[in-house]
């Protein structure tokens, strides 16, 4: 795979598809971020993508993202300038301009929002991210593993409220920001984890922009060839086709700023006669058989794909009757360490499973 060097209008379709895939059901539909990015690229030109190793050690890298429940973002659209206000606010707090934009989360809406910000601000975007997928909480990033503080962090909403956080640790940042996000109406734009180039080289996952671009390209090429993308994705990304079936029931609640719940899927074809449960908290976190045996758990990626088109399905749009493929991908090795599993393992989310790598299940 070739690294992505710049993001043009033509790339946005692939990136949005790949972002939805790595969103593992959550992170919000990249669509809104995609049209925001397209608008910004039309106005300001393509966005340069740079490798983290090409950054100066003293460069200022600022990740921007949207925070909140994806279910809310479907109806409450961003006004458009919140993300850039969050960035400008953080620049004011730090007393210097950002040199590059960073993607905290390669999955979902947050794969495309930073592109919109980078285009508008005329800054390059780093080819990397902090999760290698989507996760529901903001301390769940490789930067936390590397000891980078989320603060100072700024938040902005569509009404014009702007807030700076300075907290004692990254879990506290999440708690404050979550509570404030709920008060802001369930969704807000954030800039956080300001890093030097030197820190970014140690603290980030690499190649994520190129990866989501490639995934999107594969999905689309297979669509055009009238094939389901799951086979080629399994081949090229070391993925596993875990299950195929029909969604029979979805229990979904928006609580504490998250979309939480469970989906029941009954097998079709080769999987007929069996059924599985998918547990989610914004993202799909655990896939288990009817008798409770895990077949995939966080931090490995569990993606839901349309059985016909291969298009990724998010937790908030999934509904009764959908025919789906449950697709698993091994996570970045950084998450399989003790510290990584403390942050994002199944037990952190309250599931009674110990983590076992997906390829061993």
């Amino acid at each position, binding site marked *: 795979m070739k690294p992505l060097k710049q993001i043009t209008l033509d790339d946005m379709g692939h990136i949005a598809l790949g972002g939805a895939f790595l969103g593992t059901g959550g992170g919000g539909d990249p669509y809104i971020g995609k049209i925001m990015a397209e608008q910004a690229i039309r106005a300001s030109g393509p966005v340069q993508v740079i490798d983290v190793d090409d950054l100066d050690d003293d460069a200022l890298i600022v990740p921007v993202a949207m925070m909140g429940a994806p279910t809310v973002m479907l109806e409450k659209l961003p006004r458009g300038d919140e993300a850039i206000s969050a960035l400008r606010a953080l620049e004011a707090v730090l007393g210097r301009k950002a040199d590059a934009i960073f993607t905290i989360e390669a999955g979902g809406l947050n794969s495309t929002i930073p592109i919109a910000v980078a285009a508008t601000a005329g800054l390059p975007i780093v080819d990397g991210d902090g999760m290698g997928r989507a996760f529901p909480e903001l301390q769940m990033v490789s930067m936390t593993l590397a000891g980078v503080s989320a603060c100072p962090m*700024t938040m902005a909403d569509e009404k014009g*409220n*702007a*807030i700076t*956080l*300075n*907290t*004692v640790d990254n879990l506290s940042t999440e708690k404050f920001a979550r509570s*404030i996000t709920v008060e802001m109406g369930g969704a807000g734009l954030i800039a956080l984890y300001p890093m030097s180039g030197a820190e970014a080289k140690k603290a980030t996952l690499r190649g994520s922009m190129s990866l989501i671009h490639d995934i999107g390209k594969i999905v689309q090429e297979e669509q055009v060839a009238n094939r389901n993308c799951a086979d080629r994705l399994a081949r090229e990304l070391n993925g596993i086709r875990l299950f195929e079936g029909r969604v029979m029931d979805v229990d979904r609640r928006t609580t504490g700023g998250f979309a939480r719940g469970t989906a029941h899927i009954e097998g079709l074809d080769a999987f007929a006669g069996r059924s599985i449960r998918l547990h989610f908290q914004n993202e799909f976190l655990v896939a288990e058989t009817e008798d409770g045996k895990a077949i995939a758990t966080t931090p490995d990626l569990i993606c839901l794909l349309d059985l016909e088109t291969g298009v990724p399905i998010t937790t908030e749009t999934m509904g009764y009757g959908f025919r789906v493929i449950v697709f698993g991908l091994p996570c970045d090795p950084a998450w399989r360490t003790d510290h990584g599993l403390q942050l994002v393992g199944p037990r952190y989310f309250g599931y009674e499973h110990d983590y076992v790598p997906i390829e061993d299940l």
Partner: protein
Amino acid sequence: MADTMREVTLEDLDALEIGAAILGTGGGGNPYIGKLRVREELRKGRKIPVIPLNELPDDALVVSLGGIGAPVVGVEKIEQGEECLRALRAVEQEVGRKVDALISAEIGGANSMEPMLTAAQAGLPVVDGDGMGRAFPEMQMITWSIYGQRSAPAAMADEKGNVIVFRSTLDDKWLEDLARASVVVMGAAAGLAQAPMRGEFVKRAAIPNTVTQARNLGRAVLDANREHRDPVQAVIDHEGGRLLMTAKISDLERHLKGGFAVGHLSLEGFGDSLGDTGKINLQNEFLIFARNGTVEVCVPDLIVVLDADTGHPITTEMLRYGQRIAVLGLPCHALLRSPEALAVVGPAAFGYPDVTFVPMQTKGGA
């Protein structure tokens, strides 16, 4: 006013505590812990100068500060002591300028002491006045907001070291909502420093001389106790108020709702009030007093509940069935009676649209 304070001294603290608790009208939190902290600062040799409002320079930068949270929590989770100082420093950093003086957001209750404590720590004077002249449950219920002060930048800090800066908020209601959401995460108690104000504005908008007033009111009660005079009468005489009722609490309904203590108490009169029934509605503070079903005094005028025998104020969380109490009405300052003020602190703002504010009758006639 005679005997204007120029400095907060050790001798003032007990009187200040009692006066502030009375002006808290049942809420505002207990000033006791704040008093102990201020006392420690004064014993260390720190000074707390008091500036009368009329001596405040027009271009002075003044910050209003106080604790935010549920008073019930403040009793058990004792503040670390530098929450307001950290919030003040965050506001100073945000505006890029040092602050010249501090003022109490709320003279009633615990927030009477907070600016004094921070002033001692930061080496700043406090202004003789506040933003409420009493206690109110929400942050937008303050003269700064009523008379047009912008709400940002404000900052809050907790005992753990977390600091949140509100760089821009639409209005004080938004500041209240966002700060309330944050204070829950902070464990329901935090220090809050509001947006810096110019001295010229503070002179117009502050309820004047309330630090001196609280100290002198407390002194009147202490003097009455020492001289075996009626402390309830001392409060009435000092504040130009009126005894509304002496009564026994015959029923009490109080529950926590949205972070507030809300409910009402029913009263059966005794003494001169024998045969009367009364009712007081509360939301952290006492809001409305009715005799035999007719409203006599309501917010923003002050309804004060004192122990009938000792004259000590009783806060809403300390109310009990069977307590014998004296209910007093004290007139609020004219700054709280303007139409723009009544829209924010009148009975309708507390969910009583059918009650119309009529300035309470004082002893010599209204």
